C-alpha cells in the first residue's frame, strides 16, 4: 500500500538521520573494532565532544537505569491478572421497580422515566415563560404559579406571576 510504504521510508530516513547524528557525536559504537586500544590520548578527545554536543537526555544514558521487563508476560499470567475477582464487574443489589411507573430505578436515584416525563412538561412551561418575558434577564422578583385550563387563582396566589397553560393539568402535578 502507498501509505505504509511512505511511512516506512519516512521512518528509515529518520533512523538514518539519527544514525548520522550519533556518528558525528562519536557515541556510535557499532563500527568500533573488537580489540580497542586503551589510549589516554583518545579519552580527552571524546570528553569535550560529549560536553559540546547537546544530546537529548535519555538516548544512551537511559539504557543503564530505566526499568524494563525482563520477559514477555504469558497470556496465562495476563489472564489471571485481568480476570481476578476484584476486577470483575460487581452485581448491583440496589435496583428496584419504581412505584409510580413500574420502570426500574436505583434506590438513591430518581426514576429515569418519571424524570423525563416531568422534564417534558417543564420545558413546555419554560417555553411559555420565555414567550411571556420576551428576552433574557427579565424575570420578575415574585413567585410563579402555573394554572391550567379551568383553574382560577386562589387567595394565596394574588402576589404571584401567573403562567397560563391551555391544556389539562397532569395527574402527577399536585
Amino acid at each position, binding site marked *: 500500500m502507498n501509505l505504509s510504504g511512505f*511511512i516506512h521510508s*519516512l521512518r528509515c530516513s529518520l533512523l538514518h538521520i539519527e544514525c548520522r547524528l550519533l556518528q558525528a557525536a562519536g557515541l556510535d559504537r557499532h563500527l568500533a573494532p573488537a580489540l580497542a586500544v586503551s589510549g589516554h590520548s583518545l579519552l580527552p578527545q571524546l570528553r569535550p565532544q560529549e560536553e559540546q554536543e547537546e544530546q537529548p537526555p535519555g538516548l544512551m544514558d537511559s539504557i543503564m537505569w530505566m526499568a524494563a521487563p525482563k520477559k514477555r508476560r504469558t497470556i496465562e499470567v495476563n489472564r489471571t491478572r485481568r480476570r481476578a475477582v476484584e*476486577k470483575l464487574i460487581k*452485581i*448491583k443489589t440496589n*435496583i428496584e421497580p419504581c412505584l409510580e411507573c413500574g420502570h426500574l430505578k436505583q434506590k438513591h436515584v430518581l426514576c429515569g422515566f418519571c424524570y423525563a416525563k416531568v422534564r417534558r412538561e417543564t420545558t413546555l412551561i419554560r417555553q411559555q415563560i420565555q414567550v411571556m418575558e420576551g428576552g433574557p434577564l427579565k424575570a420578575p422578583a415574585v413567585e410563579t404559579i402555573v394554572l391550567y385550563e379551568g383553574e382560577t387563582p386562589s387567595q394565596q396566589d394574588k402576589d404571584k406571576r401567573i403562567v397560563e397553560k391551555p391544556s389539562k393539568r397532569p395527574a402527577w402535578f399536585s
Partner: protein
Amino acid sequence: MWYLAKMIRGLSIDEAVAQLEFNDKKGAKIMKEVLLEAQEMAVKHHNVEFKSNLYVAESCSGKGRYLKRIRYHGRGMYGIMDKVYCHYFVKLVEGAPPRAEEKTSLDAAKDYVQNLRNRTIIHSL
C-alpha cells in the same frame, strides 16, 4: 465486553436486563438490546410460554475484524491504532436459572479428611 458477558452468565433474563440497564459501559446498552431481541424471538418463534422463564445459559464475546488507522505522535512518529469490533453471543434457556449448590462446612471437612486418607504411595506393595 467480556466482563459484561461474564457478569450476566447464569442470571435470569430479568436480572440480566436490570444489571445491564444500570451499567455505565457502552457495551451494556448493546447487550441489553440483544437480550430483549432474543427474548422476543424466543416467545414468537421458539414456543416459549412465559418470557420471564428464561435464563442466560451461555454468553460470550469474541474478537471481530479490526480496522487499522494511524495515530500521529510527536516528532514524526506514528503508531497503528486499532478500531475495535467484537461479536457477542448469547443463549437463553427456558426454566429457572440453575443455582450452584452450596457446600456445608461439615461436608468440606469430611472431604478434607477423606483426601488425607486417600494419600498413598503409588506402585508400592
